[in-house]
């Protein structure tokens, strides 16, 4: 069970500690052990999920930008689910951000020491996470800043006034009681909110009010895929690539641009070895009252969402029966659904649709010395909604070189967009940044080893020698893999679309209110790997 919470800054100076028992160890006695364990793995690219202190205790920690949060867990009697400490920290961070404002900092923690004590006391009771939902917490512990309280109360007053003129809701407390609350000191200000809501919709506070009702759906998909060139018989390649380019805007397609030609002539094609598209639907709700919403998704037939995970607010039976998301949203931002599409399970003909808007052609072993490579990107112009691809970066890794073969360096000989830089250690980066759709950036590069770099640099007769030299080693240098990263808005690879977002019941919202609805589609890349 959880025994203590410690918050330190990133140089391991304690900022806040909350010990559940008198006998719980203090941060000072702990940090040395933790630090020594962390030192053990320093240098390796590694993390430790849990740090064992001794037979009875282990800690779990999470680093944020300014703070490190440790949770000490005792495993003496109770063997606790090992993911609980981690999820607990996640909740703690959410709650702290909710109460103290987004970028958490040491000063904020110090200033709100008392509130944090109260929060910790609610979050955890007898070592077991208690109330961790920030919406429920706010009912118990008020947001305490004096100014903000005045602001919010005046706001409430104003709204109440508006509502009373509109013949508004009976649920809102009368002006008188609010006023007396103000008078009798801070304590009585936090009125207890209705009980019914805590059971039906524990994730939502009852008295949510907005002058401006709006709701936003953001669908974010992350592509994780490993692509590998696969040799195709010419005929097959042609059919595949034509089907791949079939989705292109026809005007663009007929425009005689290169990409389609390049695709159909190349005898190898990048096909996914394995991969997934990880999607999540984020919902931002600024809605008054307790409305019930229905979100209908249009999922293409080729996409299998497998078993998605849902926010507790989603009615699972409705999803199972009719594939519709029906829910009373939590106030503010929440991730209502997460799903995963297996790229391997998608039909071969629709591969290129699933892999996003950037097609890659990657060839190695070019040039006289067979040590050149070429990367061509085809930015598809599939949808009018997408005009540009952002943060397009390609990292080129050359890891398949033995130490005995010397330091290698990578140079670019042709680079149409962005800039190319060598990062050392065989890694280099082509930073294309933002590029508009329909373009075709190309990079051509050479890889040389420092042992025979001089020879390569000076052209002429020596070149032939180098070539034989390289052959003699049985080695032609070529990148081992590329990592592609970009993001774009307006299109997601799975092709999922929001068909409709309806308000089914408007408890406390008023039938006449038509909230603003917004939908956003965002594509990101996680591990987009292209092998040579």
């Amino acid at each position, binding site marked *: 069970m959880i025994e203590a919470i410690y918050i330190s800054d990133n140089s391991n100076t304690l900022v806040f500690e909350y010990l559940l028992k008198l006998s719980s160890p203090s941060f000072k006695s702990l940090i040395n052990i933790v630090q020594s364990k962390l030192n053990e793995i320093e240098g390796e690219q590694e993390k430790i*999920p849990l740090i064992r202190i001794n037979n009875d205790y282990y800690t779990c920690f999470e680093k944020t930008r300014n703070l490190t949060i440790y949770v000490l867990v005792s495993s003496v009697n109770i063997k606790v689910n090992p993911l609980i400490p981690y*999820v607990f920290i996640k909740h703690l961070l959410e709650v702290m951000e909710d109460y103290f404002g987004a970028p958490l900092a040491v000063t904020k923690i110090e200033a709100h020491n*008392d509130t944090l004590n109260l929060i910790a006391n609610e979050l955890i009771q007898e070592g077991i996470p208690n109330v961790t939902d920030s919406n429920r917490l706010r009912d118990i512990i008020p947001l305490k800043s004096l100014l903000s309280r005045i602001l919010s109360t005046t706001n409430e007053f104003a709204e109440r006034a508006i509502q009373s003129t509109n013949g508004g809701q009976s649920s809102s407390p009368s002006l008188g009681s609010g006023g007396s609350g103000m008078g009798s000191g801070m*304590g*009585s200000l936090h009125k207890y909110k209705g009980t019914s809501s805590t059971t039906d919709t524990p994730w939502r506070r009852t008295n949510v009010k907005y002058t401006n009702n709006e709701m936003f759906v953001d669908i974010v998909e992350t592509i994780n895929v490993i692509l590998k060139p696969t040799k195709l018989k010419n005929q097959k390649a042609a059919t595949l690539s034509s089907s791949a380019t079939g989705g292109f805007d026809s005007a663009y397609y007929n425009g005689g641009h290169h990409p389609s030609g390049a695709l159909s002539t190349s005898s190898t094609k990048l096909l996914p070895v394995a991969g997934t598209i990880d999607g999540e639907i984020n919902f931002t709700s600024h809605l008054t009252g307790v409305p019930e919403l229905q979100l209908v998704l249009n999922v293409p037939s080729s996409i299998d969402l497998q078993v998605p995970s849902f926010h507790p607010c989603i009615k699972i039976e409705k999803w199972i029966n009719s594939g519709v998301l029906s829910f009373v949203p939590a106030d503010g931002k929440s991730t209502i659904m997460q799903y995963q599409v297996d790229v391997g399970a998608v039909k071969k003909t629709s591969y290129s649709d699933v892999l996003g808007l950037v097609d890659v052609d990657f060839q190695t072993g070019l040039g006289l010395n067979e040590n050149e490579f070429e990367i061509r990107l085809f930015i598809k112009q599939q949808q009018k909604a997408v005009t540009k691809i952002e943060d397009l970066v390609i990292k080129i890794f050359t*890891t398949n070189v033995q130490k*005995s073969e010397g330091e290698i360096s990578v140079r670019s000989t042709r680079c149409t967009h962005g800039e190319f830089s060598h990062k050392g250690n065989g890694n280099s980066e082509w930073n294309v940044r933002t590029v508009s759709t329909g373009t075709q950036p190309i990079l051509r590069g050479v890889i040389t080893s420092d042992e025979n770099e001089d020879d390569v640099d000076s052209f002429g007769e020596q070149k032939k020698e180098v070539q034989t030299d390289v052959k003699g080693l049985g080695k032609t240098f070529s990148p081992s893999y590329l990592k592609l990263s970009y993001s774009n808005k307006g299109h997601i690879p799975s092709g999922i679309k929001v068909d409709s977002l309806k308000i089914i019941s408007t408890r406390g919202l008023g039938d006449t209110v038509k909230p603003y609805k917004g939908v956003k589609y965002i594509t990101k890349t996680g591990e987009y790997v292209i092998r040579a």
Partner: protein
Amino acid sequence: MTQPFAKISSMLESARDLTIEAAVSASSRFAETSPSVMGYQEVIKLLNSRNERDILSGMKCVMASISRGESSTSGADDNGTEDALRYFGDVVKNITCGNTVVKNLILIYLTKYAELEPDTALLSINTIQKSLNDKNPITRYTSIRAMAGIKISSISPITLLCIKRTVSDLHPDVRSATAIAIGKLYGLEDISSSTKKQLFEFLTKLLSDSNPIVVGSALKTFYQIKDSVLTSSISQSLEKKKWNVLHASFRRLCRLLPTLDEWSQSFLIDILTEYSRLFLPKPKIYREGGEVSDYDQLSAQDNIDNYEVSMDADLQLFIDSLKPLIYTNSEFVILSISKALMSLAPPKTYQQMQLVPVTIRLISPTSNFQVAYFALQAIRSVVVQNRFIYEHYFKRFYIYPDDLPSIAQLKLEILSMLANESNMPLIFEELKSIVFNSNSNLIAKQALVCIGRCSQISDVWNQRILKWCLKQITKTEGLILDELLTSIRYLVQTKNHTTANDSLAKTIYRLSLLITNSDNKIDSEAKASIIWIIGEFTNHTYNQIGPDVLRVLIPNFANEADIVRYQVLVLSAKIMAFELEAIVGENEIKYFFEENIHAKMFSHILQLCKYDNSYDTRDRARMLSILLSGQHHESKLATLFLQVPKNAPLIGFRNGDGKNTNLANSSEIFQSYYKKIPDWADPSGHPAASVRKEILSKLNGGNENVVTSISSQNFLSKSQSPIPISEHAFSSKDFQSGVPKITPKETYRLQSLDDFFGNEDEEEEESDEDDDEDDDDEDEESDNSDEIEESDEDEDDAVEEEDEGYGQAEVDGNPDEANPTSSDSEDSDTDSSTTNHLLRK
């Protein structure tokens, strides 16, 4: 017109957000300076102020000094605790302060330090107790929790009384705090076992509460209590009985599962998993041939398509109740489900529940490291038991370049277990590319290990992999080459030697070519390993290859590295031993030593080794020279220890390996959770399934043990009439006597065992504080009216006992409708009584 209006209001809203933001940062800056600078005297002054605001800032200072764990700033040699204790009296006296924030801070302070200053702390008890009557549920909620949190054993009777009252509080949050309080009180050191029994009764009541939040808290408390170690002997009998609390609620809890919060869900799943192991029969499997067996007799080879599963109805109910939970967004709940299914049902059920895609989703590169790590651990545990269910998904365990070594290692381990004839070509391709393209040597090494392990799937693959490994020797170096040679050794040794002698000889030949071909530049360590392998298997090649290798090596002996020289010596010794073996006669030996080329080479090597730098080599040479000097028994000994079959190298994923102890620890922590589960209890010891019959009738069954074991003194001293010992006797007697309607008084006695305590408590309470009398009386009345209903239902059950299944199903079907009147009326009764009470006050 509306649009500009909306715009303006949205602007206002954002302006408001901005101001709030500003306010937060402003106030933080303002507060930043105050607490730390304050000295002891100033804080005391603040705490003794009359102004609430001053007290609040005083409290803030106190809390700050605690939570910063500072001792150095306060000077002297006192540590943090003593530092905080200096304020004790001044803090506690403010308990009467009207400000809730101050009060809550004091309660936090008090629960932590009360045990160190029990006398002063007692002064606050009365105030806390009084606040249990507060109108504001939050006050009652914090008070009962704090009350139980004060670790002074002398107040435990009072706390018990308070708990008794708040157990039936109107507000769910207060009841849920009561559940927490029960856990706190139970955890106190010197609590009498009768108190513990009572606490269990309260907990039972809360477990059957109508509000999921309350049930959730009760479950958390139960989870905590169930594993706490009890010392006294009386308590140990309680140990076994604590599960009785669950009998009655089992089915209801299964149904409630989806409505609980994520923590409670996870705890409940763990609890019910343990419960099922203790009280439910094992599932059976029916194989295609009509064979029936327990599910745990399935071997890892049993394909899931070959059998059907049949389970106890209650176990099925529990497993079915997990179905909606696979859609949860809490990763640890999935871990709990996976644990439950693995420990309660055969792999087929695991697959049917769609847990395979759910767990696999957790290991995606977008999910958090810890989540992925533990999900992989869970998957590994499942795959060890049955690999078929994940077989289809092997591609999902491919490694991404940025995977951390710990993740990669688990993935590889799973991959090697999933490999079979049909997917091996793909897996092999994948592993090969990892070996050469990975950023991290560690991962590349692991991939090689994985390749080695995959060789076990068939002889054909063994051969194919071996061939590949041999090809790679010249292309690799360092760590990877080491691992490659270990793999080769493993592959050679695990080959089936009777059938594959030819291919073995071929392998050795290929290895020998590597050595003899002077164009190859091989690492000396690798060279040494290869020479060892050639020597080790020289008798498998009838000593055809070894001598030739030796011949090539001798001229360059002096230029080789230490380890290579040593291995050359060993090789020559092995060759000698093989040759000596073949010779029998005395003369022949003499002739052999004089003429045979093998003997000549050996003696030459010995000669060379005499002047070796390494004393190890020199020593070994002397020893071998004596052993192989031609004396028959000695040469036998030499053969014995030179050719003793060696174990194949351990080609596993070595968790304990030096640097990885941290990971080993994490994995251990996982195992201690995932694998820790009691064994299936002997079915003959199980109580009848009817104990799990729903709610009220079952409460009797559940309480029976607790009730009967309550000290008989109570009976004797208080009994108005002779009472049969068990409640069952009661109900049956009533049933037999055929009294259709039971008078209130009799029902009172029917439930008397519970109520005796209530009575006694109430009497105590009456003497303690007269204020509460009315309240309690009214409670009692409402209790009584409730009990009539209970006993009525008892009878119904008794009638239906014969065909329990049906009667039960009805109750199961719509429990909320089954006794809506009773619970509702109870609620409204207590409702009105309390409001009356409040009004009167």
